[in-house]
Every structure is written in structure tokens, then in C-alpha cells.
């Protein structure tokens, strides 16, 4: 199962702009995997969106879902 991850703002300087991760069941597992691979991530605030909707609870991921990592917004 392939999950596309897109990364924005200052976080893209740490993780790059895109990642593809296999065999991840849900957003919590995804975060654990990312924090393991990129320990610097602990220094950043961010929220997660799944298929363009922000999620605040652990969310099941399915084939070809898109997960976005969004640091604090600063538009306008």
C-alpha cells in the first residue's frame, strides 16, 4: 500500500517536498515512522491533512491516499 506524502513550508527543507511510504496503516504510524527517520521533525509544529482535509485524530490510510504535512500557516 503506497501513501503519497507532500510537505510544505519550512518542513520541506527538512523532509523534501515529496515522500512515498509503503505499508503504513494510519496517520499515527506514519508520524512515528517519519519521526524515526527524521529526528529533527521533533523541532517543528505541524498539522496533518489527509486528502486535503485536516485531521486531528488518528486516521486510517488507504492505497493512493495523499497525506500533507502542514507547518503553521502564514498567508496574507
Amino acid at each position, binding site marked *: 500500500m503506497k501513501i503519497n506524502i507532500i510537505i510544505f513550508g519550512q518542513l520541506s527543507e527538512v523532509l523534501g517536498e515529496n515522500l512515498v511510504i509503503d505499508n503504513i496503516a494510519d496517520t499515527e504510524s506514519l508520524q512515528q515512522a517519519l519521526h524515526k527517520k527524521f529526528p529533527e521533525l521533533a523541532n517543528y509544529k505541524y498539522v496533518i491533512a489527509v486528502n*486535503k482535509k485536516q485531521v486531528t485524530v488518528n486516521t486510517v490510510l488507504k492505497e493512493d491516499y495523499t497525506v500533507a504535512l502542514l507547518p503553521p*500557516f502564514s498567508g496574507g
Partner: protein
Amino acid sequence: MERKPKNIFILGPIAASFIGESIAKHSTNTAIGGHSIFLGQVRADIINEIKVAAIEYTAYEEMALEKMHEIREAIFAKYPLTCIHVYHSLGKIVAGEICLFVFTSSAHRKAAIDACNETVERIKAELPVWGKEIFLDESIQWKTNK
């Protein structure tokens, strides 16, 4: 009335003449009594003695347009408006240029003013857009919204 998501993003600064033309288009709607406009302009902040030369904006565009559509619908439901127009710049906007244009119109001023303010607050808080401040010495810093 169902409204379709509109693109709000403009590559580069928002020209003052575009704002003037946008205002002019409303003269045919004689039900309007008041317009409220907010413009965000890139400020040459001085941070650690170095001046901001520009802000480079990026966005998660698809998500931002869906969110903006949701904000627009909520504002229309809450206030008796004739229209709302929103434009946000992407790319590098130099200090003094306009990067945000929010424009609301209604029969009576209060609805236009309140709707404009609320739309601006929601844009700043809820749209996945990021500004990277580029200093005169080419160092950078990610902008944070108050």
C-alpha cells in the same frame, strides 16, 4: 445558490490597477450601498537589523481552494452580501507590493465591513499558505502569523 470553488491565486503581486478595475465592475450592481476592502502589503520589517526585501508565498493550492470555498459559503450564509472577491499572491512579492485583496459588498455597510474582517481573519488562520521572508542579505526566515 451553489457556488463553485474559484481560483484565488495570482502569480506575483496584485496590481493596484486590477483593484481599481475590480471596483469599477460593481457600478452596474445598484443594490450595493457599501464596499469593504482589505489589502495586505508586504512590509519591510527589520529583524535582527536586516530588512525584509520580499516574501515568497507558496500554498497547498487544492486544499486552500477547497477551504476558501468553505469560508466563502459560511460568510455568505452569515451576512447579507452581494459578493465576495478574494485574491492571494503566490511567488516572490517585494516589499511595498500587495499580496492579499479581500473585497466584500452589500446593501448596507455593516455587513460588508464585518464580512471583510471575518474573511481576512479566516484566510490568515485557515488557508494552507506559507510566506518565506527574504532579507536584503538573502538570508531567509519563515513568516509567522499573529
